[in-house]
Structure formats: structure tokens, C-alpha cells
């Protein structure tokens, strides 16, 4: 679409003034002439070159940059490869379209050094490239090892930089450009968490959107609302809903003239992703799903017809859901059922779709066990799990998390679900999970975490402060015996309410992680990630 291209051109305008050819093209655009496909390709290549000279610490990871350089050196490589890698989002939770934004932040002080180093590496790589056949992927993996000092620092995701006014301004500008409404924080934030957003459910992000929304697809608007109001909750549910919404988007998409589907569709998705992350920060599973979709879109060959491409993408999405979520849960159930024996008393926390599925399967296979459901304020998700299990006919007990020490001596196993598994072996899950694991460890009760591999992410975290989500603080208010103590908490100056959503469990509390690849210890997560990356 000319629009997105125009945005890119505008951003280049901000950053570089040097390339004359670029100016020409810009002028041609301003004069209203239609750019042909070839011109657009050339434009892109030149833009990349400029970016290469300008960019410093932040930016896409090294592998991507190496590929870009390799593509510059070996023009035989299809041009579609590089934008694919350029567009692939780096940190799991970041919105992907920050690459044009990244170009806006030059640090000219190091530019010359970097240019020199790059020139040196180019020559090195040229000699290596001469030995091997043209632009292979493996060529880039070798030079990745050598320039260690050029290892780029990962770009910090926006949603943990709320206390940095510069980052906020950048975000505001980006959202304005994408015509996505900016959601404002609500209420007094506890100082320990000033780096996170805190939204109120009463101010949905859709208030400022005009109807009909011009930029954002209606199914995405609906999805965003469902996220922000908590109607769709739970890692798997959110990912599946996201993928279905994307299927709808792809169905309704039509390639504008002089544009390639593979490139344009990816750019179309960026404002949607920004909007969704404004509604509710993206989860690790959603991030991985988005990465997959973008990769699939970019891999569509340019000669593919639109209908064919769309059909292929729909199939990809369906197979992703099927493989990574549905079949994975079948596999995990099979492994987990081996661990459930007759007479067991199993403790579960909150509502994890995977754990509920496992228990229902085990019950169908005639295992005799009973379940204790532990729940916590303010979400009280355990009640939903309780309903599902009772409907199946499983014998259940229900307590709140403060009664954990009372109920644990009866328990023989603990099954927990996970929101994400981090690369250092920590389990990120609903707040309260770490507490359950802690007390279970004190009573020597085995703790088993069930998690699909698509939720594994490369982030690392050691405590629950670094990256978390703050939910609406008004949820903590409760009325008992006609008295609401916290009713006017906003007016009281020194009172803060903290409603955390996630917490991290250290790996020494977890005895076993059951994944679709098998039963692994918590510390093997980076191994699985590496294996997955090599496969892809």
C-alpha cells in the first residue's frame, strides 16, 4: 500500500539527508508519480544500506544484520529474504514495527567506528563467501561468532519502560503515526512498579477510536476489547483468539496494486499489534505466534497468486494451532497421565486449560483421584476450573490460597500451568504459583509444571519485578458486611493497591516440566529453544 511505503519514506527523511538518489525518489513520490515495483525494491535496498551505516547498539539481532550484509554482498539472494528478517520482531513482547523508529535514533559518535569495523568484516566475509556457494544461511552463522564486540544490546520492550519519558514519547509518536489510540495509565502506581503500565478496565482503549475504524480491522478491535475487559484470558485462549482474528484479517485482505503481499501484509499487521499491546501487553505465546505468522507471510514467494497465498496462510495458521496447541495438549496429557496414580490427591491452582484437560482425560481413563482447587483473589479463576471439573464428575475441594498450609498435608501432587517458560529455567505463571511451589517444597510434595513448547521464550528474569503486568487496582476493593474500606483509596495520599498478574517461580521449586517433547527438568528450557531454532 502506498501509505505504508510513504511512512517508511517519511522516516528515512528524518534520518538521512545524504543520498541523492533517495531524494530523487522522494521527489518523484511527492510529485504523485507511481513508483514501480522495481523502484520500490531499489528504494528498500538503499534504505537498508543507510540504516546499516546509521544504526548502532539497538536494532535487530546480529544474525539479521549479518544476513542483511550478506544480501548486500550477494545480490543474487532474493530481495524478499531481507525484509522478512528485518521485519521479524526481536524481543517477544515488543511491537515489531519499531525498526523505522529505530532509524530515528542515531548515535553519530560511534558511527565511524562501526563503519570501519563493518568494512573489515565485509572483507572477511567476502573471502568466506568466495569459498561457499552464494548467500547461504550458514554463512551468516559463522561471522556471528567473530565480532563479539558488535553484539547488539537487545532493544528493551516498550511496556517495561513506562518510567522513561523519552520512551513514552517515542511510543506516542509511533502510535500516532499508526493511528492507534494511546491508553493512559490509571491511579497511583506503587513506586516499585513505576516502570510498568497500569490501566483501568473502565477506560477501554476503544473510546478514542472512531467508528468505523479506518486503520484497524474490526475483528482486531473486538479482540482488543475482549483482552482488555478480561473476557478472553489465559495464554492458550488468547493465542488461539489472536490467530483466528488474523485469519479473518487475511481473508479480508486484498493486495493493493504494485505491492507484494508478503511485504505489505506484514506492514499491515504492525498497527494491529500495537493496538493489541495497548489493550493488554502481549503474552509470550502471542509473541511467538506473531513471529511465526510474519515469517510465514514473508516466505510466500512473490509469484504466488493472491488467492493461493491467502489459502496457504490460512492453512499455516490452522496447522500451527493444531500442532502447537491441540496436539501438544494431547501429547502432554499422555505423559502426564502416567504420573497420576489411583488414590492421588492432586492440587491445582487457578484455571489452566491444559491442566484441566489433563485431569479430564485422566478421569476418562478411569484413574481414581480427587482434586483440590486453590483459588485467589481478586481474579477467582479457580471457580471456573471448579465448574469444569465438577461437570466432568471429578471430586473436588475448594480453598483459598491463604489456607494452603492447612490443605497441603493431604496433597500428593501439585499440577501447575505456565504462562511462559523463561530461558534461565524460571516459570512465569499466574501470581500465586510461586507461593504454591514454595509451600509444596516445604512439605515435600512434588510440583509438576505443564507447558507447551510454543510458550518457551528467550527472555530471562529473576524476580517478579523486572517484567510484569499490573492489572486494574480497583479489583482489590471488596465490600464485606456492608463496609468497603478501600472505597476511596484514590483520595488517600499514601495508599496504593497492587494487583500483579504474573510471578516467576525459581527452578528449584519445580520438580518436572511436562512438554510435548517429553518430560524435562526446568533447566533444560534453553536446550529446547536451541533445538527449535536450529530446526527452523
Amino acid at each position: 500500500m502506498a501509505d505504508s511505503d510513504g511512512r517508511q519514506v517519511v522516516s528515512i527523511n528524518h534520518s538521512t539527508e545524504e543520498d541523492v538518489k533517495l531524494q530523487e525518489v522522494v521527489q518523484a513520490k511527492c510529485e504523485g508519480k507511481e513508483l514501480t515495483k522495481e523502484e520500490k525494491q531499489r528504494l528498500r535496498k538503499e534504505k537498508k544500506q543507510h540504516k546499516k551505516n546509521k544504526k548502532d547498539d539497538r536494532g535487530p539481532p546480529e544474525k539479521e544484520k549479518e544476513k542483511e550484509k550478506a544480501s548486500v554482498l550477494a545480490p543474487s539472494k532474493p530481495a524478499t529474504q531481507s525484509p522478512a528478517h528485518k521485519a521479524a520482531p526481536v524481543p517477544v513482547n515488543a511491537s515489531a514495527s519499531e525498526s523505522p523508529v529505530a532509524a530515528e535514533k542515531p548515535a553519530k559518535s560511534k558511527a565511524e567506528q562501526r563503519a570501519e569495523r563493518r568494512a573489515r568484516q565485509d572483507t572477511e566475509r567476502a573471502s568466506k563467501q568466495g569459498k561457499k556457494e552464494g548467500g547461504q544461511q550458514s554463512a551468516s552463522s559463522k561471522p556471528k561468532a567473530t565480532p563479539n564486540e558488535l553484539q547488539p544490546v537487545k532493544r528493551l520492550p516498550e511496556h517495561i519502560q513506562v518510567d522513561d519519558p523519552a520512551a513514552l514519547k517515542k511510543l506516542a509518536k509511533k502510535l500516532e503515526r499508526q493511528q492507534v489510540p494511546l491508553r493512559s495509565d490509571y491511579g497511583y502506581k506503587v513506586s516499585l512498579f513505576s516502570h510498568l503500565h497500569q490501566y483501568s478496565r473502565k477506560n477501554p482503549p476503544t473510546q478514542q477510536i472512531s467508528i468505523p475504524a479506518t486503520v484497524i480491522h474490526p475483528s482486531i478491535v473486538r479482540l482488543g476489547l475482549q483482552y482488555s475487559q478480561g473476557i478472553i484470558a489465559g495464554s492458550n485462549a488468547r493465542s488461539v483468539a489472536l490467530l483466528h482474528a488474523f485469519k479473518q484479517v487475511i481473508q479480508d485482505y486484498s493486495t493493493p496494486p504494485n505491492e507484494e503481499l508478503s511485504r505489505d501484509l506484514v506492514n499491515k499487521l504492525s498497527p494491529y499489534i500495537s493496538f493489541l499491546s495497548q489493550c493488554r501487553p502481549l503474552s509470550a505465546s502471542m509473541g511467538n505466534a506473531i513471529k511465526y505468522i510474519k515469517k510465514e507471510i514473508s516466505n510466500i514467494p512473490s509469484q504466488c497468486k493472491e488467492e493461493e497465498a491467502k489459502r496457504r496462510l490460512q492453512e499455516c495458521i490452522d496447522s500451527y494451532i493444531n500442532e502447537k496447541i491441540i496436539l501438544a495438549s494431547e501429547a502432554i496429557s499422555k505423559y502426564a497421565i502416567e504420573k497420576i496414580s489411583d488414590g492421588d490427591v492432586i492440587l491445582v491452582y487457578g484455571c489452566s486449560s491444559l491442566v484441566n484437560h489433563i485431569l479430564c482425560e485422566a478421569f476418562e481413563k478411569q484413574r481414581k483421584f480427587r482434586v483440590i482447587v486453590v483459588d485467589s483473589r481478586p481474579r477467582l479463576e479457580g471457580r471456573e476450573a471448579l465448574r469444569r471439573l465438577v461437570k466432568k464428575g471429578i471430586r473436588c475441594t475448594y480453598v483459598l490460597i491463604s489456607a494452603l498450609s492447612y490443605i497441603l498435608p493431604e496433597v500428593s501432587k501439585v499440577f501447575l500451568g505456565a504462562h511462559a517458560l523463561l530461558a534461565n529455567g524460571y516459570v512465569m505463571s499466574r501470581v500465586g504459583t510461586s507461593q504454591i511451589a514454595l509451600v509444596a517444597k516445604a512439605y515435600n510434595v512434588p510440583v509438576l509444571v505443564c507447558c507447551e513448547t510454543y510458550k518457551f521464550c528467550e527472555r530471562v528474569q529473576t524476580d517478579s519485578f523486572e517484567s510484569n503486568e499490573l492489572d486494574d487496582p480497583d479489583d482489590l476493593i471488596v465490600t464485606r458486611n456492608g463496609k468497603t474500606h478501600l472505597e476511596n483509596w484514590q483520595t488517600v495520599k499514601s495508599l496504593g493497591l497492587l494487583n500483579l498478574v504474573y510471578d516467576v517461580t525459581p527452578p528449584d521449586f519445580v520438580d518436572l516440566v511436562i512438554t510435548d517433547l517429553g518430560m524435562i527438568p526446568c533447566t533444560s528450557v534453553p536446550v529446547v529453544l536451541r533445538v527449535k531454532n536450529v530446526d527452523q
Partner: protein
Amino acid sequence: MTRRRFLSGSASVQAFRRLDQLTILARNQRFTETPVKMPGADKETDLSERIESFLSELKRCGSGAGSLRGSAETARETTALLRRITAQARWGNAGELMEIIRKEGRRMTAAQPSETTVGNMVRRVLKIIREEYARSRGSSEETDQQESLHKLLTSGGSSEDNFRQHFAHLKANVIEAINELLTELEGTTDNISMQALEHIHSNEVIMTIGRSRTVEAFLKDAARKRKFHVIVAECAPFCQGHEMATSLCKEDIETTVIPDAAIFAVMSRVNKVIIGTQTVLANGGLRAVNGTHTLALAAKHHSTPLIVCAPMFKLSPQFPNEEDTFHKFVSPHEVLPFTEGEILSKVNAHCPVFDYVPPELITLFISNIGGNAPSYIYRLMSELYHPEDHELYTGK
């Protein structure tokens, strides 16, 4: 028969005298509206009325986890009632007094078994009686205690007879000692709060759970001179933490309310954990509000000191091994309300009120007599209570 014939002459005089008495009493009745009975019985019925009303209050106030009045009040009222019993009941020697008190004590503890301060005060008063008796007799109490094992072996049940002697001043001495106990009770919260500045420094993050009036006073006292941050875990389902937070905010203390599930998540930033308790058990463990054990484990994991502010009247000679009497449950409606409908009948819901915290997780006890380690509790107990009074139910 013979008596009647002998008095027949003066019978009418006596009858008139009795009539006079009755008219006087009747006149009194009109003014005071008390039922007509012997003057000495007035005090007794008054006393038993007070005891009955106290018992019914005890029974009533145990419906929720946060009792309608704090344990300090209960302790004070119990002691006042025991003083009244000592003053008004009929007893001739120390043994009889102890019997009466034990009997009333049994009734009071049976009314509300979870309110242990009642039993503790009864035991304190019994110990006071023993001490006063021993002092009147002239023997010192310490020697008695030291040789208790020796005494057991050599002179079997001789302690039984010791309390049968009558001393004229015993009543006054006992009442005076009980008055001292009452003064001590009134000053406990202040004594504990005075130690606050020793333990709380500036810019600390302190965590607490639920609502304890002792801890509230402790923190407020420290807040007068120092600035710190308090995190209160709300302690579902009764959410007493909310009340605590609003009350602390009135003194301009930076407070944050967190749900129980977030205790471990925020513990890494906490410098100290200060909690109150319902009872301090004989082994140094606690019977505290539910959720405290989790808090203690999280503090242990992060090596954060756990400080318990408990006045001495909460120290109870019970041990935590009696599983059926240790826990108290309230209506599961608090946990799973009736609005949940059909699943209610198929589900067991539990709502325990108390938690056991083992002494290994506790760093320090701060009481009105100063700071102590949990390993010292057994010694304090022997100073407060006599070993024979530990079991009120099997007392002699």
C-alpha cells in the same frame, strides 16, 4: 412439736418480727425492684449474672476471624471478672478459691475454645493465688519450683494439703496482685510500641498480614520519627488487611495493599516481616491468622527476619499436636458463596481461620517484657504459669 409448744407464747412476737422484716424487705423491693431473697445471696446472683453475660459474649464474638474486640480487651475483662469472683464468692481457704476459679475457668474456655487469652488469664490468677498463699505461709516460691522433681519423688501428694490453711489477709493480697496484673495488661501495647524504634529504620520496606492492633501501634509509633514503607497482605477471605491499611494511612505511612497470592512475588524487596498472632504456643510456635505460614516460609526463603509482636498474655501452655482442637473453621460461605449454585453441593469448601507457624521460621518475639528468641519461650512460660495449671480440665 415440743419446740412449737415452747415458743407458742412468743410465737406471735416472732411472727410479728418476721412480718416487720418482710415489710421492710417489701419496701426495699418497691424501691430497688430486686426479687425478695436473703441479703447475702444478692452478691452471688449478681456475680453469676455477670459470668453468664461474659460467657454469652464470648460465644457470640467467635463468629468471624477478626473478633469483635481484640484479645487485650478479652484479657482485661477476664481478669476483672476473676477479681470480682475472688472478692464476692464464698471461700474459706486458697484451695476452695482455686476450685471456684478453675470451675469458672473451665466454663469460660469451653464457651470459646479458640480464645486462649481467657484460659491464660485464669492460669495467671491461679499462679498468683499459689504465690500469695506461699508468701503468707512464709515459704518462698522459688525453692518450691526448684525441688519440684525431687518433691514428686519423695513426698507424693503432700502438696494437696498445702492449700487448706486459712489466712486472713489472703483475699486482700490476691486482689492486690490481680490489680497489678490488670495494670500490666493495660500497659502491654505501649510497652511493645516503645521498642519500635529499635527495630525499624528509615527507608525500610516492612510486610505484615491481616490486622493486628499490636502491630498497628508498633508501626505508628515508629512512624512518628522515621519514614518507611509498609506492604499489607489483605488476608482473604475476611480482608482485615484493608482496615489495617486505611488505619496506617491516617498516620501518613506509605502503605500498599497486595492480595495474598502476591506475597512471594514481592518478598524479594521486603526488609522485615512484622506480624501479630492470636496465640503463642508452648514450643515457641504460633497460632496465627491463615496465610501466616506461607508468609513465614517466603521470609525464610529470602532470609528476611520475621518478628512477632505478641504481649505476654497471649502465651499459652498448649502444644500444637492436637490436630482436632488446633484448627477452627468458619462457614465456607466466605470462600464459595451460595451464589455459585449447583456446584456447591458437589464440592467441599474449607475455611480455616488459623495457621500453625513452627518456631524455626520465627526470628524474634517482641513482648511487653522485651525481645526474646523463640527458644526462650519455655522459660517465660514457667515464670507465668504453674505446671499443675496447664491442664484446666484435669485440675485438682
